[in-house]
């Protein structure tokens, strides 16, 4: 098959230094088990999972330890066998630095597997709903970083038919190479996963979008496709322009189609999945294995031996860094994710989660600039690089003025937070920070509104109930009163007096009868007395 290049382009974007060679030359290495694994209940978009184990329980490798409670949620499994030592709030990888509910497991080193569901090598004979249920059971989420539950994304029933499956293998952010290594080393698994996903969403073709700085990975995939003669799957090389790995950007690059504002790709007949997600799907369906580890890139000049590692979910970041030879003298900042979209970790003991693709131990030069912000000079450079064709300076302007209606008029929620605008800003304005501020404020306002609507409904329901009860009470009283008034007039005489009189009469009658029987005479007197 001839090399296929994409004829399409997206607006803006940046040419960045790749920094891939630091970590992509060595194979993915396995790491030993850490002394403790910390599994946050929220590693995904949606509702947090709910623990189904208790402190002190012994768990097996792959055992479900927390259930998905909602449709949009993800199950969590024990990455190894051991004992649950704590279910409590722990530091989690989040920009806030706040704690969240986690299950802490102390590995026993036995790696004793739980009983796994049966592998389905012939998955085409299985019902779609069962396949989706298996993916849901496996706790698979988008492994590119967004961590959206995959079982939800592949549920296309009742929506527009899907023509195309887009596999995101662009890995456009500098430094990150975990998908690159995965494709080179597990190309058959990637194609297996793609075949399952295509079957599941009913796609006719699959386009694998891969940046031109990963020729080895592209070759590995092409070789595997050629071996299987899978003509419906094509590898499309896209230029290395950041952010080509953005879902909507990649779709534009591969198909020329644009996803509507605030819409999702399925609106135009496309489903997009990350390449590592495809491998996780193959593991779940073909081997019955849940998602309990992932490949993580450890790189940057701040670490001694950069590379890629297969890390059990829940391993502390510091432990992973140790496996990469520990920090070097140049360490300045530890970033989770890439230099463009990642965030600085407050604490290196936080666990690696399903969404954690990269630990960037950045030196001072590698770390994103924190220069002093100066006033916007309206140069418009941010507009030329914005891949979503927004007006970043206007968004900034209204976010700065806390004008949250106006900022939404300028399509704040279409912003993908790629950081291109802030990267080129000559005034060093932390633009993305302003957008995140505005987004989280708007969400908070929405939550408040929801709560106040709920309170209003409950208060009104209460008022209605108290009014109803009062009306019922009054009606009852009225009824009683009416019933009393209706009784015959005789009853109005004091009942006590009447009873006494009746008793007196009875006694008198008895006396008279006794007298009459004793004397047998003076009937007249007796009858007189009776009167």
């Amino acid at each position, binding site marked *: 098959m001839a090399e296929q290049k994409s004829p399409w382009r997206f607006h803006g974007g940046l040419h960045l230094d790749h920094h891939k060679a630091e970590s992509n030359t060595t194979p993915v290495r396995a790491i030993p088990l850490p002394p403790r694994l910390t599994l946050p209940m929220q590693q995904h978009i949606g509702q947090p999972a709910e623990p189904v184990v208790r402190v002190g329980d012994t768990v097996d490798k792959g055992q479900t330890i927390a259930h998905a409670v909602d449709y949009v949620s993800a199950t969590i499994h024990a990455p190894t066998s051991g004992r649950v030592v704590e279910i409590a709030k722990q530091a989690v990888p*989040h920009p*806030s630095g706040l704690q*969240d509910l986690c299950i802490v497991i102390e590995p026993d080193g036995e790696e004793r597997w739980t009983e796994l569901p049966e592998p389905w090598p012939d998955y085409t004979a299985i019902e779609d709903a069962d396949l989706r249920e298996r993916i849901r059971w496996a706790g698979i989420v988008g492994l590119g970083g967004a961590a959206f539950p995959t079982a939800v994304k592949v549920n296309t029933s009742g929506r527009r038919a899907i023509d195309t499956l887009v596999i995101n293998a662009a890995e456009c952010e500098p430094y990150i190479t975990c998908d690159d290594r995965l494709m080179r080393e597990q190309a058959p698994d990637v194609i297996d996963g793609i075949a399952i996903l295509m079957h599941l969403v009913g796609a006719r073709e699959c386009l694998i979008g891969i940046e031109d700085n990963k020729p080895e990975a592209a070759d590995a995939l092409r070789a595997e496709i050629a071996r299987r003669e899978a003509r419906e799957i094509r590898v499309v090389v896209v230029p290395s322009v950041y952010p080509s790995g953005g879902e909507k950007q990649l779709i534009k690059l591969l198909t020329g189609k644009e996803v509507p504002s605030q819409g999702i790709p399925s609106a135009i007949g496309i489903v997009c999945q990350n390449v590592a997600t495809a491998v996780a799907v193959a593991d779940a369906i073909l081997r019955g294995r849940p998602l309990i580890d992932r490949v993580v890139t450890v790189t940057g000049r701040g670490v001694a031996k950069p590379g890629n590692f297969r890390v059990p979910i829940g391993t502390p970041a510091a432990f992973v860094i140790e496996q990469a030879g520990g920090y070097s003298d140049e360490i300045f900042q530890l970033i989770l994710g890439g230099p463009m979209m990642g965030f600085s970790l407050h604490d290196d003991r936080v666990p690696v989660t399903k969404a954690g693709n990269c630990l960037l131990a950045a030196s001072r030069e590698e770390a994103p600039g924190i220069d002093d*912000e*100066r006033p916007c000079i309206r140069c418009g450079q941010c507009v030329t690089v914005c891949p979503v064709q927004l007006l970043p300076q206007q968004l900034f302007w209204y976010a700065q003025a806390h004008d949250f209606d106006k900022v939404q008029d300028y399509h704040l929620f279409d912003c993908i937070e790629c950081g291109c605008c802030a990267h080129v800003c000559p005034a060093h304005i932390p633009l993305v920070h302003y957008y995140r501020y505005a987004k989280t*404020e708007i969400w908070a306002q929405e939550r408040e509104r929801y709560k106040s609507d709920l*309170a*209003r409904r*409950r*208060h009104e329901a209460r008022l209605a109930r108290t009014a109803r009860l009062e009306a019922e009470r009054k009606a009852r009283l009225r009824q009683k009163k009416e019933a009393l008034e209706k009784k015959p007039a005789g009853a109005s005489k004091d009942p006590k007096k009447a009873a006494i009189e009746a008793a007196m009469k009875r006694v008198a009658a008895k006396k008279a009868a006794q007298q009459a029987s004793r004397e047998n005479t003076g009937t007249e007197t007796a009858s007189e007395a009776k009167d």
Partner: protein
Amino acid sequence: MINAIITIAGMAALFGLLLGYSAIRFRVEGDPIADQVDALLPQTQCGQCSFAGCRPYAEAIAAGEAEINRCPPGGEATMIALAELLGRDPVPLEDEQAADKPKSVAYIVEDECIGCTLCIQACPVDAIMGAAKQMHTVLTDECTGCELCLPPCPVECIHMHPLEDTPQTWRWPFPRHAASGAGHG
């Protein structure tokens, strides 16, 4: 001349009838301004405005009988939103200390609760569960933090717990250097 007078008079009569008819036919039930005001109020139902809940206060505001600065839970943001809606001038909050209080929810110390149901009767949003001589508890998600359950409790076993931020509710802070950048045109 006569024609003009007749035409104008005829039109006046016609439009008068039309207006009169639509006033009856398209009559709006309730007070739409009170509804809009009510939508802006936080629905805490706490009565700190001296009215018996948010709706009565909204009706008083709509009727021009109450100031717009009497809602401490709504704080300055609500006052400003009301000022904008009604075209009034913003006024400083009546009770600024109360407005600065962190958002809280009621919590019942269950070991101390004697099951008197007084707090259940006081709760404006039915957020307390329990029965006579049974331990009571607060439905945290429904509690508005109005504190109306505190005074009736004979054993003072209800405490207000400030709501803590979680990673799910956390908000990005306003960028640090913004102060120096703001104000420059």
